[in-house]
């Protein structure tokens, strides 16, 4: 069963009801963001305070090392959540200039995989030949990286398959999506240990900004993007080798 994301109001609905629904969704979403930030923020504050209460000798010991590692890990989670949240906010108000350029999908995915942390789960990639998409590089990277993160939850190996048709369809599968997670991120994992609780909202908004779409099904995530069939560089561009 597929569950396509749609935030559009239902046709024929009372405008007041639509506005109330939108406000309720917005409030719920912001509550979820606050919840996700407060957990790692708590750990960061507590561990920093515990370290401050320790003597220099204690701080240099095993417990000090453990608390320092927890503090840094928690701050990384906070940073990831804050970055994802503000990206979502900016995309919501079209506050980011989106520049569509022809990009080799294979090169984009390969560059992303090279930058992944060493402990990230394995990713297999299957492309239907050389594929060129019309996209903003930064947003495309954020969308694919976010999908790799959610599909790779709990260390699950990830499979990326891209096919061309009228558009480019990029299927990312791995960890099964939580039912309704795309419509409401609160229905996803209760607390993401990597701080990627907002990965799906990021991917959905980035897909929309790239004039594509994101669909979640039991099989995984399907990102669809406009395809470049034949790209002709502008006359003043340097010729490609």
């Amino acid at each position, binding site marked *: 069963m597929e569950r396509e994301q749609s935030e559009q109001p239902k046709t024929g609905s009372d405008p007041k009801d639509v506005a109330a629904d939108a406000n309720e969704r917005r409030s719920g979403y912001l509550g979820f963001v*606050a919840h*996700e930030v407060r*957990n790692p923020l*708590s*750990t960061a*504050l*507590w561990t920093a305070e515990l370290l401050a209460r320790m003597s220099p000798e204690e701080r240099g010991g095993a417990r000090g090392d*453990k608390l320092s590692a927890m503090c840094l890990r928690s701050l990384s989670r906070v940073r990831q959540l804050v970055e994802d949240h503000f990206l979502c906010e900016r995309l919501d108000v079209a506050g980011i200039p989106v520049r569509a350029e022809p990009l080799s999908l294979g090169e984009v995915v390969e560059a992303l995989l090279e930058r992944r942390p060493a402990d990230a789960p394995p990713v297999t990639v299957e492309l239907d030949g050389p594929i060129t998409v019309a996209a903003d590089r930064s947003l495309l990277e954020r969308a694919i990286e976010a999908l790799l993160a959610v599909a790779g939850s709990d260390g699950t190996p990830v499979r990326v398959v891209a096919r061309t048709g009228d558009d480019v369809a990029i299927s990312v599968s791995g960890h099964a999506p939580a039912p309704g997670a795309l419509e409401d991120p609160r229905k996803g994992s*209760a607390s993401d240990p990597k701080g990627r609780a907002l990965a799906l909202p990021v991917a959905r908004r980035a897909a929309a900004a790239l004039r594509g779409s994101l669909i979640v099904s039991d099989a995984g995530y399907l990102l669809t993007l406009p395809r470049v069939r034949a790209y002709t560089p502008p006359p003043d561009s340097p010729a490609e080798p």
Partner: protein
Amino acid sequence: MTDPLVLVVDDDPDILDAICDILEGEGYRVARARHGVEALERVEAEKPAIILLDLMMPVMDGLAFAQALRERPGKAGIPIVVISADGNPQRAASVGAAGYLAKPFDIDALLAQVAQMTSSACASF
């Protein structure tokens, strides 16, 4: 008399580790659970003096756990302190929690709450 046992229930492993570190540093014995089902098993295995309970958890959330606990003979009186990041103390009150701490709470506030609850619990045994 043995030190009071505190059961900490939270799905976030770093939160669990940090709270257990804080409590153990003050001499409490701690048991940990990642969700309500694990917490019910812990309660059966070793009767804690107090339960620190997160609300938003997978498998069985804090509200469902609190209701299940209240229906268990001999366990219903274990005091619960809700530790939640949802900023909604009404949800804690709805399950009859004895206390509520909103994350991120101060370490001293946690220790004061636990000290008060464990001394009450020990006095009532």
